[in-house]
């Protein structure tokens, strides 16, 4: 669809805005509606829009499949890693109070890391599922 001028130009303007909004939703999830899941889905939607307009091959060049798989795995590892880190620092599994000098700051750090892990996993999973569906049956991908 990249021969349509309006779609091409509009997508080039909109995709960075969507990614910026996804980061906003992720980091302001503490102060308003938002959080990891919503941010992951919105950032995946940006890449899916790019793939719909510019084709799957160009999207594979921008975001290859190994990167998407790595994102999906790193999110879960980050979440579990935070849990193990709190265990090493003396608390229970996923007890954020021990992460910093002060329980409240520890909770802030813990929630920040955990939501980052959730966003990364959801982003990787949604883009990966879209890649698998879109590439099925095509001989050149």
């Amino acid at each position, binding site marked *: 669809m990249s021969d349509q001028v309006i779609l091409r130009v509009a997508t080039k303007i909109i995709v960075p805005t969507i990614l910026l909004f996804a980061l906003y939703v992720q980091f302001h999830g503490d102060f308003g*509606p938002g959080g990891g899941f919503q941010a992951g889905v919105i950032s995946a939607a940006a890449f899916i829009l790019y793939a719909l307009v510019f084709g799957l091959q160009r999207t594979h060049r921008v975001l290859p499949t190994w990167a998407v798989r790595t994102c999906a795995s790193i999110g879960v590892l980050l979440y579990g890693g935070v849990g193990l880190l709190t265990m090493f620092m003396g608390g229970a599994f996923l007890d954020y109070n021990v992460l910093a000098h002060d329980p409240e700051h520890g909770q802030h750090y813990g929630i920040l890391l955990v939501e980052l892990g959730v966003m990364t996993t959801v982003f990787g999973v949604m883009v990966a599922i879209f890649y698998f569906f879109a590439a099925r049956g095509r001989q050149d991908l």
Partner: protein
Amino acid sequence: MRILGLYNYWFFIFLMMVGFYILISRRNLVKKILGLNIFQTSVFIFYISMGKISGGTAPILIEGAEGVVYSNPLPHVLILTAIVVGVSTTAVALAIVVRMKEAYGTIEGDEITALDNENPF
């Protein structure tokens, strides 16, 4: 929601039953999954409606305000998880439908059953 009282639960049960009817009575596999989606979303609406407090507001704490009534945040958390699990289930179900189409050549349930009965292996 003031005009409905207890009847709104019945309305959401009606929506659930519409989704359930699509799931069990239609033969096309993709239509069944659409019915499952509608069923799931109606269950979410039913569950969230139990957490609403009249005159309440969204459960985001307002700085320095006293006596504000917040709606119950616990159903929101559970349904947030349920929505994401629901889309995961839908993705795997659609992948199975794609494979069934490639294996049988059709996605109508009765034709698949007939093909299975002809070649039972």
